[in-house]
């Protein structure tokens, strides 16, 4: 079953309690932040703390990511912390990382070469350390298609709306029409590359209705998951992404029939007088997968 990534729950990497308590809320993914949430003079402390946590804490079924610091500055000089983050955390057990401010294929290649070196040096299975490219600038979003497809290390791409709207000179609104194009662009790029698309955060914890509205659009646009900043958001997203039992039953039927008719890879069949083709089968499989993830079926 494909790994669900409905929620990526952020936690600052310098917070001891969150390092061992975040998995309790059962997000699909946890993302420990070494970048924006950490002050410059605490970058080293956060990095070392996360490394020690990775060695002993059991994160259960949560997929653990770290948002490392960028490897390059906007002017393409070497950035101070990113490389050290990777060199410290991969040997400590980190296998998933979000690279922020990703703008070009070169950014990914540079990180990938560093990972090759570390996998070799530490006897880690080659290519097993994966990257989530975070697209947060105009250029990044523009290059989404290339970036998403450029490496087998890329499992997902994510959208960061705050920096994007800033770099565009737009105003970030709750209604979100200014980021609609970027979000769709990212979903398309991810779909073409066969990777997951992760939607941006909703920061206003006091506005539950607004959050639910945005999650509805996250789902409708085709994002696989959403970045979250609080455990309460995880619950909401999981509930909204949980199919109804009716949908589940229908989908189970379709998946079963498709398996029997052996057309999973091409063709058309009929169920209850309706035409069922590959896209519908794929959707049914996704629903079954969501149902299993939500614990509706075993």
């Amino acid at each position: 079953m494909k790994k669900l990534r409905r929620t990526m729950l952020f936690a600052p990497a310098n917070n001891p309690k969150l390092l061992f308590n975040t998995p309790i809320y059962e997000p699909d993914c946890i993302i420990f932040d070494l970048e924006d949430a950490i002050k410059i003079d605490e970058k080293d402390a956060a990095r070392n703390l996360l490394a020690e946590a990775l060695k002993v804490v059991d994160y259960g079924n949560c997929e653990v990511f770290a948002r490392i610091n960028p490897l390059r500055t906007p002017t393409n000089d070497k950035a101070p912390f990113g490389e050290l983050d990777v060199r410290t955390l991969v040997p400590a057990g980190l296998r998933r990382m979000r690279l922020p401010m990703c703008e070009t294929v070169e950014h990914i290649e540079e990180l990938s070469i560093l990972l090759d070196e570390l996998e070799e040096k530490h006897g880690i299975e080659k290519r097993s350390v994966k990257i989530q490219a975070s697209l947060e600038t105009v250029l990044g979003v523009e290059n989404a298609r290339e970036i998403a497809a450029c490496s087998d290390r890329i499992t997902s791409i994510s959208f960061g709306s705050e920096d994007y709207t800033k770099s565009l000179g737009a105003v970030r609104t709750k209604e979100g029409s200014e980021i609609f194009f970027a979000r769709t662009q990212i979903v398309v790029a991810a779909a073409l590359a066969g990777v997951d698309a992760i939607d941006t955060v909703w920061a206003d914890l006091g506005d539950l209705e607004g959050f639910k509205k945005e999650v509805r659009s996250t789902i409708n646009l085709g994002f696989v998951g959403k970045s979250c900043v609080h455990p309460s958001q995880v619950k909401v997203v999981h509930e909204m992404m949980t199919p109804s039992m009716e949908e589940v039953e229908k989908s189970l039927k379709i998946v079963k029939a498709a398996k029997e008719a052996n057309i999973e890879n091409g063709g058309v069949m009929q169920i209850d007088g309706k035409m069922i083709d590959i896209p519908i089968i794929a959707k049914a499989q996704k629903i079954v997968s969501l149902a299993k993830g939500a614990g509706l079926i075993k």
Partner: protein
Amino acid sequence: MKGICGNEKASDVLVSVDLSVIGISIEIRSKLKKMFGYSMEKAVRESLDELNIENASVIVEDFGALDFVIKGRTKTAIERAIKNGGGN
């Protein structure tokens, strides 16, 4: 020669390291010293070993932290002490 890392907050520690001494001395200041002092000291020793430090005085002010937190903070305090001009 000296480095500090951590916070005086619940579940954290404040670790002060001085590399300009001879030998290893570890002082644990904690309400839980009786119960967990042995484990806290072990975490500090492991941190010193893992960074190949043979001379250091370490003071740990504990606020109910788990051992991995002690290790993370100790290692950072050591690295900061080295950067601040200490050596082994």
